[in-house]
């Protein structure tokens, strides 16, 4: 049975804040930060947006793109590190808002830092392949928090993407997936704490690079493929530098990663990060193109995917806004407005 992506939908809030604006507040050198992170601006949620509203918009976009019947959906998994409720699933609200269920529907929320969404894709793949469900919706969505004045503040962004996984009418086939997982505490947030902690430079080699390269090499070895076999590649994008560097290490070229590298204009949408890059790539890919994607989640683990675009992509391409359309016409805000939107000012 072939399984893969039947549809996808993305959502990006319309507000942005520039790196310079944040740097100005903290007395930092904007140019060196931009050079170091390769992020010019990031998305900011509206006062009435959160991970759930973003997930709903992304899911609705995926449903309408391919005219999916919501009653065919057998599973909904929302992966995020900013679920609005610590206990009460985001997934049930998404389900209700897209008209799925209540019969024959299983729902749960996922958490694995920035790879919660791709873990959800893997779970859906298993359920579809086993014949337990017809269609599964995997969502990676976040309204990420970075502590004021911390390095993460420049990149923690808001956005989400939904993938509908099935076995018929595929827009893109997922040939295989492979994961590499260890207990590596490079980044975490304790229950009840508003902002995450991170290990600084420790998040690099022992975290991001080790897991991505292990998962990527593991998958290519399993499939007997090489970087040259792929037209496009997407790696988790906490900033612009890391994916560019890991691509080079693995043997992928800057041209291959270009369409999927949205972080310079969007920031890191955490659970949405890789999935947004994949969406941006699918927006322009042609049938027959091959895509290699490797997500990374702190804690730590990497999920790698090998994808082949099918003819079905042309039928669904215009059914929902593209990532480029979502990135267009942003509304820029200053730090005060940004702080208000992100609830950083405690009342």
């Amino acid at each position, binding site marked *: 049975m072939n399984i893969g992506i039947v549809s996808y939908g993305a959502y990006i809030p319309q507000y942005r804040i520039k790196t310079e604006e944040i740097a100005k507040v903290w007395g930092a050198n904007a140019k060196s930060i931009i050079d170091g992170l390769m992020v010019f601006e990031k998305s900011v949620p509206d006062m009435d947006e959160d991970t759930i*509203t973003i997930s709903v918009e992304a899911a609705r976009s995926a449903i309408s793109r391919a005219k999916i019947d919501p009653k065919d959906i057998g599973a909904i998994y929302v992966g995020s590190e900013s679920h609005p409720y610590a206990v009460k699933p985001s997934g049930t609200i998404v389900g209700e808002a897209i008209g799925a269920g209540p019969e024959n529907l299983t729902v749960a929320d996922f958490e694995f830092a920035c790879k919660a969404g791709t873990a959800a894709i893997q779970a859906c793949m298993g359920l579809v392949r086993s014949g337990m469900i017809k269609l599964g919706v995997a969502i990676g969505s976040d309204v990420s928090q970075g502590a004021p004045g911390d390095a993460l503040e420049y990149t923690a962004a808001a956005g989400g993407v939904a993938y509908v996984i099935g076995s018929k009418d595929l827009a893109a086939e997922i040939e295989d997936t492979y994961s590499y997982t260890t207990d590596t505490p490079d980044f975490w947030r304790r229950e009840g704490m508003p902002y995450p902690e991170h290990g600084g430079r420790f998040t690099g080699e022992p975290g991001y690079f080790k897991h991505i390269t292990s998962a990527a090499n593991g998958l290519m070895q399993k499939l007997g493929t090489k970087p040259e076999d792929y037209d496009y590649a997407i790696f988790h994008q906490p900033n612009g530098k890391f994916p560019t560097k890991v691509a080079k290490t693995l043997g992928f070229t800057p041209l291959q990663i270009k369409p999927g590298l949205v972080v310079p204009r969007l920031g890191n949408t955490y659970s949405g990060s890789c999935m947004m890059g994949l969406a941006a790539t699918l927006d322009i890919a042609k049938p027959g193109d091959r895509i290699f994607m490797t997500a990374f989640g702190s804690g730590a683990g990497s999920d790698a995917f090998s994808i082949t675009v099918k003819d079905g992509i042309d039928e669904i391409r215009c059914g929902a806004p593209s990532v480029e359309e979502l990135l267009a016409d942003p509304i820029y805000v200053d730090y005060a407005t940004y702080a208000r939107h992100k609830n950083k000012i405690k009342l």
Partner: protein
Amino acid sequence: MSVPRFWRRLKNIYNLIGTQCTRCKSFYYPPRSLCPECRRESKIVPFRFSGSGEVFSYTIVHTGAKDFEKLTPYVLALIRLDEGPMMTSQVICPSEKVHIGMKVRMVFRKLGEESEKGMIYYGTKFVPERIKKSAGGEKIING
């Protein structure tokens, strides 16, 4: 609003599901269980609105309602849905852009919350319809 009271209506508020009287073909949003035209002969069924409409009137609220203070200034509007009924909602839009006659579409947003510990209320608001400018003229983008 209490939990059961909100829960009773959440399908309607999330998905703009109102009612229609199939006898006289009138549409109702918010939903009505009795058609004022047909009364005891009402034949009421649920009806899901497309979410598309136009601004009939609007105001910019500077002094917010209770629990809406953090959102001010916000655009409160009367929206005439394409199918006919008029409803009250917010339009997410820079205040200089909103105007009577503006085409809008529904989006999913937080309506509020009971308290920091309490339930979060989600529902429908509106944004300006996406217009794509192309060589063939403007057209509305789906989705």
